[in-house]
């Protein structure tokens, strides 16, 4: 290849990545400058020169700051949103009542990624278009370890309700439906009533209630209590997942399907909450010491 062709090829590669209105002018200048730098050099000298100059995409970025579809600063949020979306896609385990085949799951995941790319690209564009609207604003500072009484009491009530409904499904559902559901339909099968299947969730829930009550009385969460809560959430979620997967909870097919659906949804909610809490624990920022903020004292 002639040295002039090496230069020309390089100039075109750089110019092709610039805005259209800049291309011809930059190409003319770059061509002239590189030719002058090269003087009487041969092909090897021409290659060495353009390689020293930099990769065409890097050089183009020096001439004109390219816009990013996803801003580098948003990469972490993008990955996090992609993972959360993937976790929310129903399982491909066909034994579970809510499940999709793997092809559908792949289509949903790709659709989710595509949606995220569009949303982040719009955000990136809006931030360039209206930079003032994207200025950082302070948000209320919360003490995450301080117990919120109302939330805790509500959680304990809900857990206690789950425990009673789990142990006595017939009377509870019948009472909730105003007598429309026959309690006789909601009798556990012998297989499910076996201690190896039913018992575990019934044991986890009271332990969880005891933990929540103890923390409520203490007024604050500690690392130990947070860890125990996560473990209990995961154990209870896993147990409910097994219930949903193995089925044979009630002899009545319709009641069994309803129970499996409830177990899957509740189990998924517990597992999802546990994963969220693990993530928060992992990236936990220790609270500021009070004497560092005299104005707040």
């Amino acid at each position, binding site marked *: 290849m002639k040295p002039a062709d090496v230069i020309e090829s390089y100039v075109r590669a750089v110019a092709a990545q610039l805005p259209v209105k800049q291309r011809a002018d*930059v190409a003319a*200048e770059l061509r002239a*400058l590189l030719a*002058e*730098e090269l003087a009487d050099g041969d092909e090897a000298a021409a290659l060495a020169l353009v390689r020293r*100059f930099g990769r065409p995409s890097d050089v183009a970025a*020096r001439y004109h700051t390219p816009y990013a579809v996803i801003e580098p600063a948003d990469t972490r949020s993008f990955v996090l949103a992609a993972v959360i979306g993937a976790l929310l896609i129903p399982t491909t385990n066909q034994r579970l009542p809510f499940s999709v085949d793997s092809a559908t799951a792949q289509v949903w995941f790709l659709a989710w990624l595509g949606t995220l790319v569009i949303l982040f690209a719009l955000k990136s564009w809006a931030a360039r278009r209206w930079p003032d609207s994207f200025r950082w604003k302070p948000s209320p500072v919360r003490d995450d370890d301080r117990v919120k009484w109302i939330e805790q009491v509500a959680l304990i009530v809900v857990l206690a309700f789950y425990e009673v409904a789990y142990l006595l499904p017939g009377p509870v559902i019948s009472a909730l439906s105003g007598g429309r559901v026959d309690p006789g339909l909601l009798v556990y099968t012998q297989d499910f009533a076996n201690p190896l299947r039913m018992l575990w969730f019934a044991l986890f829930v009271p332990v969880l209630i005891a933990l929540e009550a103890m923390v409520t009385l203490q007024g604050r969460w500690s690392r130990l209590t947070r860890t125990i809560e996560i473990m209990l959430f995961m154990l209870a979620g896993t147990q409910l997942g097994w219930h949903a997967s193995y089925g044979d909870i009630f002899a009545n097919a319709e009641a069994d399907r309803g129970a499996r659906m409830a177990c899957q949804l509740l189990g998924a909610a517990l597992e999802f909450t546990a994963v969220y809490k693990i993530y928060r624990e992992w990236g936990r920022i220790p609270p500021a010491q009070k004497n560092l903020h005299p104005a707040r004292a």
Partner: protein
Amino acid sequence: MHKEHAVLAGKLEQELRRGVLILAVLSQLEGKQYGYSLRQLLAAQGMPIEEGTLYPLLRRMEEQGLLSSEWKIDDGPPRRYYMRSKQGNEVYRDLGASWRALVGTLDKMMKETRR
């Protein structure tokens, strides 16, 4: 270990130089220069700048209004000549004052640390 220090020091010096590139270029463009001649001029004064850095920088400075440019054909090939614009003169004056103040401050700080 010594080599690592040298590499790190080299990188930091590059960053330091990158920070003063605009001032160096403005200082040499009271009169007209084209990219290649400016690079030679800067190198001759102890401020070598890679061509891949200098040529795009001239364009960006022109877009910022610090330089003005024109194409000229004098005997040789067509060349784009740059020089400081009116705004470039004002920025150069302000940047020069900031630079001198900064050097004074840093000198003072470094002398105090040495004591």
